[in-house]
């Protein structure tokens, strides 16, 4: 109670900066040509390893490709991968959670034990297992990352449904003669989805992180695709001389993930 209130108030403001970052990166993915005139794949050998400047915002790499152009063109891989990952986790996890929360008893216990099992294996190891199974590749990586977030969605969805189901207003809705589907649709779902949407935003950022990690380890897209993780991995060989090859693409990843987290928190707070 003490001293906290003012701090919270300050955090309240609309996260316009975060939305702006996400919007910019979305635009990069949709229309990369509007942001850079350089080719992300074909380099100009004469221009290799130039530090950042007016001509090359993020500098150039060892074969003379513009790093900024590669980051802009690479956004589509990270974003679409993250979307697929979140979709997998959201759909599978929320359905599992709803099932568990709505049908207590044996089904609930069974689903929650399954979630325990999923939680017991760290996300990256689960993703690597899926990659052994499906092989490397952008889509496979996305599915692998999504599989890792199923447990989190399932847990949250179940907790929300259980919380809302106990609410007086749900009992009052049954008391007003409501049938289960109507009460579920009118009262339980709208009141339990907010935190799930917030988690989806958070997982979007986490998925971008995980995808770039797997890309860095070499399980994502094949070179010369400008995937963000791969980009940073390629820059590792020039650490001593060309800092920009790794630092600047990484900073873009951090910015996007931070923005997703910030948006998630603002959604989580927006409760009536």
């Amino acid at each position: 109670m003490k001293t906290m209130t003012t701090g919270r108030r300050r955090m309240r403001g609309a996260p316009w900066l975060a939305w702006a970052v996400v919007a910019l990166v979305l635009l990069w993915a949709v229309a990369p040509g509007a942001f850079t005139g350089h080719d992300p794949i074909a380099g100009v050998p004469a221009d290799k390893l130039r530090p950042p400047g007016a001509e090359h915002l993020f500098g150039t790499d060892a074969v003379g490709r513009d790093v900024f152009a590669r980051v802009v063109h690479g956004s589509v891989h990270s974003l679409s991968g993250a979307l697929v990952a979140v979709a997998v986790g959201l759909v599978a996890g929320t359905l599992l959670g709803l099932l568990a929360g709505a049908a207590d008893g044996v089904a609930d216990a069974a689903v929650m034990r399954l979630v325990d099992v999923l939680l017991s294996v760290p996300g990256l190891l689960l993703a690597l297992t899926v990659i052994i199974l499906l092989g490397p590749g952008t889509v496979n990586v996305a599915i692998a990352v999504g599989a890792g977030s199923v447990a989190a969605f399932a847990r949250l969805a179940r907790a929300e449904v259980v919380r809302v189901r106990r609410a007086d207003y749900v009992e009052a809705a049954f008391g007003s003669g409501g049938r289960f589907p109507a009460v579920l649709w009118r009262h339980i779902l709208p009141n339990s989805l907010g935190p799930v949407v917030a988690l989806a935003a958070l997982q979007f950022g986490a998925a971008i992180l995980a995808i770039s990690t797997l890309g860095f380890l070499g399980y994502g897209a094949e070179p010369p695709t400008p995937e963000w993780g791969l980009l940073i991995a390629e820059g590792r060989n020039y650490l001593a001389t060309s800092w920009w090859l790794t630092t600047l693409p990484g900073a873009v990843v951090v910015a996007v993930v931070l923005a997703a987290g910030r948006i998630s928190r603002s959604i989580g707070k927006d409760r009536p």
Partner: protein
Amino acid sequence: MTRHLLSRAGQAALVLWAAFTASYVLLQLLPGDSILIKFQNPELGLSPQQIAEIRAHYAAGSPLADYVSTLAGFLTGRLGYSIDTGAPVVERLAEALPETARLASAAFLLAVLIAVAIAFAASYSRTSWLRGALLSVPSLFISVPAFWLGILLIQIFSFRLKLVPVIGGSELQQLVLPVLTLAVPISAPIAQVLARAIDHVYAQPFVPVVEAKGATRWWVLWRHVARNAVLPTLTVAGLTLGELIAGSVVTETVFGRAGLGRLTEQAVNAQDTPVMLAVVVLAAAVFVLVSLIVDVLFPILDPRLKAAA
């Protein structure tokens, strides 16, 4: 109390068994027999008969018999043979484990220190901008790709400041940057939960009662608030222990260290399913064991749970 303990231990064993079974099934679904991929290479010049012998050596028989024998093997400490090198998996694990254990335990300690420092400083600071700044540190930490952080640290401390040699250097010097890389992302969830728990406890009605006794801010924070906020934090700290194994994959790759993470990476590249299975089960075992310990600790730290248990 003992009843509760036994049932919790039973549940833990069940989860571990299910994790083993699920990863086993998943890894057996492998399209293309990994043994065939490896040994059918014409350069090796093996006859089909020899391949069949190798398969028998790796115990590829009926699926159920395979499963049962693998499970029995795991229960007795025989984890099979690596497809990649042919060495027993136990040996490979034993080789890799000490390096990673040293790295992970140091990183975990550092992560807890960072988290406690951030959460306490935030809740003790009176100025709201300082508090806000401190509280946004964990969100930053959690948004940084670990591999990039590692690279950045190498760049700054090895290449710019030349504080840590890139190659060579003492044991300690070699450990500093990887530990930091592994600790930073793991400290974030602990700091977030601890800070939130501290906020939550401060909102409890018993806090003004302690203040009304004339207690100082530090007295309230240390003797009451921290004591109550430890409980939820413990759970999260336990959860992150499992993440340390996953985090070591990235850290060891970036810093070129040997260990469990490196072993995992090699296993994925070579589709070495026995090694991967062992690593996954090991991670699950660590997770399950730590949750069990946390569960047992809880009633000791919170007297309210003694009655419930």
